Structure formats: structure tokens, C-alpha cells
């Protein structure tokens, strides 16, 4: 086992578990989000149909991905949106830097974009003397503290208002200490409005890209996305290449299920459909709009029919909200851009199953994530697939780092397990010993220790079921 990386989730999770404040912040938020989501789907039949429709749309889009991307490029270009392609995050960062430098841009305001987190764009731009400011309130809060998002929809979920109040009073000029949420929001509004007004460029993500109309769809509640895309003279949008759908009609069900699954809202405050820069006769809007299409491992995921389901994701975060592990350790414990169940299957596929096999085992496979996923991604099945990939080199696949999570001790453990269980006589002997002497096994033995640190030691029955059935003459040989 690669001890250095394997320890990362475990250690962070342990730290998170020992922080009662963090635990409480997440538990309260998740309980609320689960209740609100459920209230949005009063009819199980409607939910089933809407999920099925959404899944079909996303699956079909992925089947036609190359054609749809080309169509998107053609129609965006026709609309005056300049399209760029990037194979890696480094390429995407360089592209964006190039666009900004060509316009002499020094300040960039950002709407929420997980792809830009994936690219670590802010740090890259800062390194080149360009200020990249997050404007989503949650993102702004964590950027002030130099943190990363702990949830893909609610990035500052891990903080409570006392922590935010302290931080604002220390880091915002002339701000007085207040725990009033309206006053804190007003403080951020004041700072950020000034930034929108002065920014040389704006950056956004893309929730859905429509191939047939060349349209970028942005879903948001705050209005910072609209500010970032309409106020500065230059707008750059970044999207993962899986975000494209054929028609605007397809966006309707996806949008409906996205907001309901994410935050339990029937509709967001804004759905912003961008199909071009400032048009003929328009008084405002950016003079230029650029779209950067990022691969970063997605085409490799796309090549595998089972793993491709990962790319159906519409980034609602419902899997996190319903995950019993995520709720208890919070998003930072995953030490990944995308936390929670979707991150547990996406991150190892992007970074390699060997490097991040800590993530693929951090699940009880309870299936709550797949149950609520609006596009029916079979997350537990993919976790098991990745566990296989991590320990076996011979699976014919393109998965990065396959086999590198293998350990000699685990290999032997399973070999021994199979050797016993496929031989009923050996199993019978083993259970005979367990039932007679299991009690004597010390609670501090390896593995048992992990169980008994919070539980009593499980004690085998005096006689096994097989033994009793045999004694009753009930077994059939």
C-alpha cells in the first residue's frame, strides 16, 4: 500500500471526526437538505420518470459526445463565442492566461466553477499577477481564508456564522463584527459590487451547453454569475467536455431535477442562457465571450462503457447530502476537489486508482448516493469496479494506475479466505474452532482491535447453524 497517500483520507477523516463543531455544522445542513429535497418530490412516480428522462438525455449525449461537441463549436462560433480546447488543466490555464493577457486584463471576477477549482486556476493566475476573485458568497468566504470548497454546491458549509463573522471583521476593511446573516451578506455585497464594477474580465462555469443553439446555461441564486458574465468587457466560460446536451428542450428536465436534488428548490433564482457576446445595438454585455472545453481525463473515462456513467453527473451534490460518511467527516477530509461519493469515483479516475485508492474504500456501499442521484449513476458499482482495478493489473482497461493499490497482505488474505470457504470441510473445521475458542481471541488482536475500539467483541455461538442442523439430521448431503 502506498502509505503516504493511503493515509490522506484516513487522517483527515479522523481529525474531522474529533471536531464536534464541524460534525454539528454538517449534520444540521445535511438533515435540512435531505428534508427539502424530499419535499420537492411528493410523487414517487414523477420522480422516477424525471430521473429516467434525465438519465436518458445524459446517456445519449455521452454516446454522441464527439458530434455534439463539434456541433456546439460550430454554433457557438456562429454566435460569436470563441471556442478553445484543452487536454489538460495546464493547457486550460495557459489558454485563459493568454486570453486575459491579450486584453491586458489584471482583475478577474469569478462565478462559481468547480472546473476552475479542478484547474487550480486562481493560484495559477495569481502567480502571473492577475487577481482572481471568487464572487459566490460561499466561495468568497473560503477564499478569504485560503481554503477550498467542502461541498460542490455550498462551498462554505463547514463554517458557522461565528467563524464567518470573525473572519469578515478581520479581513474586510472597516467591517465591524456582526453575526447577523443579513449584515454579513450586505458586507460581502458591498465589497463585491465594487469588484464587479472594476473587473477587467469575468469567468464562469457552465451547467449545460446546448449544441443545437450554441448556448451556455448557468444556474444560480445569487446573481454573481450574471454579474461575472455580463458586467466585465470579457467573459470566459470553462466547462468539462461532458456538459453538452443536444437541445435546449433537454435542459428543461435536467434543470428541474438539478435544483430539486441540490438544494430542494423547485427553481433557482436565475437561469442565465448565454448565446453570444454583446450583439448589434446592445448597450451592455461582454464584447468577447470565450468557451474553454476541458478534457483532463474525461475522454479516458468516456472510453469505458461502465465508467462513462460517471460523466452523466450534473454536479447537484445530492450524493454528498445523503452520504452517511460525508455527513460525518465533511468535504475537506477527502482531500480532493470533488468530495463525497461522486468525488470518490471521479477523483481516482482522474488522478489514478493507485494514488487515490484511499477514497474508493471510504464507503460502506450503503447505496444512499445512487438512490438519490438524479441521473442514476451506480456509484457503489463503480466503487467496486475501481477496487478491482486498484488491485488487479490484468483487467483490460485504460484506468490509470490500475494494480497499484495492491498489497501482498491483502492478496494473501483473500486467497486464504477463498481457500477456506470453497472447501466446506475446512470451513467446518474453522467454525468448529471459532465456536469453541472464538471467545478466547483477544479483543486487541489486529483487525479485531478496529472493531472493539467502540464495540464489544463479537462472540460466536456455541454451536453453528450447520452443526445444529446436522445434529438434527436435517441436512442433505
Amino acid at each position, binding site marked *: 500500500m502506498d502509505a503516504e497517500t493511503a493515509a490522506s483520507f484516513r487522517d483527515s477523516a479522523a481529525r474531522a471526526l474529533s471536531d464536534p463543531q464541524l460534525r454539528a455544522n454538517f449534520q444540521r445542513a445535511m438533515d435540512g437538505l435531505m428534508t427539502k429535497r424530499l419535499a420537492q418530490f411528493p410523487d414517487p412516480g414523477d420522480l422516477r420518470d424525471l430521473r429516467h428522462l434525465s438519465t436518458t438525455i445524459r446517456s445519449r449525449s455521452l454516446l454522441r459526445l464527439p458530434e455534439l461537441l463539434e456541433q456546439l463549436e460550430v454554433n457557438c462560433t456562429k454566435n460569436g463565442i470563441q471556442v478553445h480546447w484543452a487536454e489538460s488543466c495546464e493547457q486550460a490555464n495557459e489558454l485563459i492566461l493568454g486570453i486575459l493577457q491579450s486584453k491586458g486584463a489584471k482583475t478577474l471576477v469569478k462565478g462559481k466553477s468547480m472546473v476552475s477549482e479542478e484547474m487550480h486556476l486562481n493560484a495559477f493566475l495569481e502567480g502571473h499577477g492577475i487577481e482572481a476573485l471568487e464572487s459566490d458568497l460561499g466561495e468568497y468566504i473560503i477564499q478569504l481564508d485560503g481554503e477550498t470548497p467542502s461541498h460542490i454546491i455550498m462551498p462554505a458549509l463547514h463554517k458557522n456564522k461565528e467563524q464567518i463573522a470573525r473572519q469578515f471583521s478581520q479581513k474586510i476593511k472597516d467591517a465591524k463584527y456582526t453575526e447577523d446573516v443579513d449584515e454579513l451578506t450586505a458586507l460581502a455585497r458591498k465589497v463585491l459590487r465594487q469588484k464587479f464594477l472594476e473587473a477587467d474580465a469575468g469567468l464562469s462555469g457552465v451547467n449545460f451547453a446546448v449544441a443545437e443553439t450554441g448556448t451556455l446555461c448557468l444556474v444560480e441564486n445569487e446573481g454573481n454569475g450574471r454579474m461575472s458574465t455580463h458586467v466585465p468587457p470579457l467573459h470566459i466560460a470553462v466547462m468539462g467536455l461532458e456538459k453538452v446536451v443536444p437541445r435546449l428542450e433537454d435542459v428543461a428536465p435536467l434543470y428541474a431535477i438539478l435544483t430539486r436534488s441540490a438544494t430542494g428548490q423547485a427553481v433557482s433564482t436565475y437561469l442565465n442562457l448565454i448565446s453570444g457576446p454583446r450583439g448589434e445595438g446592445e448597450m451592455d454585455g461582454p464584447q468577447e465571450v470565450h468557451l474553454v472545453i476541458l478534457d483532463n481525463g474525461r475522454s479516458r473515462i468516456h472510453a469505458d462503457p461502465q465508467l462513462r456513467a460517471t460523466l452523466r453527473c450534473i454536479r447537484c451534490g445530492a450524493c454528498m447530502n445523503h452520504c452517511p460518511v460525508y455527513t460525518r467527516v465533511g468535504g475537506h477530509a477527502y482531500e480532493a476537489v470533488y468530495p463525497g461519493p461522486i468525488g470518490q469515483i471521479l477523483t481516482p479516475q482522474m488522478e489514478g486508482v493507485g494514488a487515490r485508492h484511499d477514497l474508493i474504500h471510504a464507503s460502506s456501499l450503503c447505496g444512499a448516493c445512487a438512490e438519490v442521484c438524479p441521473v442514476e449513476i451506480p456509484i457503489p458499482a463503480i466503487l467496486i469496479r475501481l477496487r478491482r482495478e486498484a488491485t488487479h493489473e490484468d483487467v483490460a482497461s485504460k484506468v490509470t494506475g490500475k494494480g497499484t493499490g495492491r498489497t501482498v497482505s491483502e492478496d494473501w488474505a483473500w486467497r486464504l479466505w477463498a481457500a*477456506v*470457504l470453497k472447501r*466446506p470441510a475446512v470451513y467446518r473445521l474453522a467454525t468448529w474452532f471459532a465456536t469453541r475458542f472464538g471467545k478466547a481471541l483477544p479483543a486487541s488482536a489486529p*483487525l479485531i482491535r478496529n472493531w472493539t475500539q467502540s464495540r464489544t467483541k463479537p462472540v460466536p455461538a456455541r454451536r453453528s447453524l450447520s452443526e445444529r442442523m446436522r445434529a438434527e439430521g436435517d441436512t442433505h448431503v
Partner: protein
Amino acid sequence: MNGPKPEKVYFYGTCLVDLFFPDAGMAGIQLLRQAGVEVIFPEGQTCCGQPAFNCGYWEEAREVARTQVALFPGDLPVILPSGSCAGMMKIHYPELFHGQPDEAQVLAFSARVHELTQFLVDVLDVKLTDLGEPVKVTWHSSCHAVRDLGLKGEPQALINQLSNVELAPLAREFECCGFGGTFAVRHPGISAAMADDKAADAMATGASIVLSTDGGCLLNVQGTLEAKHRPLRVQHIAEFLWERTRGR
């Protein structure tokens, strides 16, 4: 699934019931017999193979699974006192054996697999008579019973047939108890946090027994409650139903 009631069934004990809850296994067999069904318990049962399957060791899982499938020739239903193991054999065996030479044989086997309470309600349509003292119980839904196998309240329907039993709703009934097989030893801290919450929710119901279909959940919740010296006890649904209806 409703049709003519079978006269004979196979019973598959599962390794956890075999070793830790044999009374539940015996009770399951008695419940089937009480419903007028002859029960065959083939010798040579070990494990469905789920632990290796879940950890990605499919070759090892298949080696074991093959020996188990071979114990159940013919076309009789195979009944398991576990949602998780039934889910493995019914839902995951087809994945595990996809493209294998014996795929067809395994598929035919999987189609015959039933979880005990599902079989009692949906196929045998049993009617229970409660002979026990008044008691308050609560129900923990096993993740795999509900999400893999698709149990739709069959165990609760059986409990509700018992006139002297009050079923108290468990907060977060569908949340995982934290067992998850090897998860409990790979991530003991998180698993313990989940089990602690489950135990606390169960205590809050005021019930005296926590019931479930699954040995894994029962071991986990029982160990947690015992470590905290809580008076609440856990019991497998089969054992509980049999105790209530057999008349002592």
C-alpha cells in the same frame, strides 16, 4: 411472485447467521415449516462471497460462489435470512459471472433466490398469530435489503400482524448503521460514529428491541449498544417472529 405455493424450499444460512445467529437461522426454518413448507438445508454452506466481491477480489469471490451455487440443484426457491446475502446472490451474482462459462447456470440460480421475509409475505402470504407479551420494538432497514433487493416493507408488514407488538419508527431508518463489511475495520472511526448515531436513534425510540433482517447490522448495533451498557437488545427478525408465534 404470487403463484402456487412451493411445497419445498432450500434454506441458505449465510456465514454470519451460521456463526453468530444460529437461533435466527433455526427460527427462519421453523417459520417456513409453520407455513407448511418443507425445508432442505444442504450441507456444505459457507459464504455467498460478498466480502471478496465488494473488495474487488472477484476471482476469489467466484471460486467460493461456484461451490455454493452447486449446492442447490433443481428449481426450488432458495431462501436466505439476510437481505445483504440475498442481494449478493440475486443481484450481484449475474454481474460477477458475466461472460463466465457457467453464467447461464448462475443466472438460473439467482432467479430462485429470495430473502426470508419477502418470501413469507409475497409468496407464502403467511398469517401470524401473536402469542407474546406486549412489547415495543423498532426497525432498522438494512441498506442492501432495501436498495439492492428492493424490500418494500415486508418485515414491517409481518411485525404489524402481531397484535401485542408496537413498532416505533426509528429516526433516519434508512441510514446505514456503519457496518459495511470490511468498511468497519478499514475505517473504524467513521464506522463507529455511524453506529453510535444508530444506537442513539434506537435508544430514543423507547423500544426494548431493535430488529433487522441482517446479521451484519445486528452485530454492529449490538456491539455498540453493549459497549455503552445500553439495556436495548438486538434481534434478528426471524427469531423474533418465531418467538412470538410458536407458543412456548
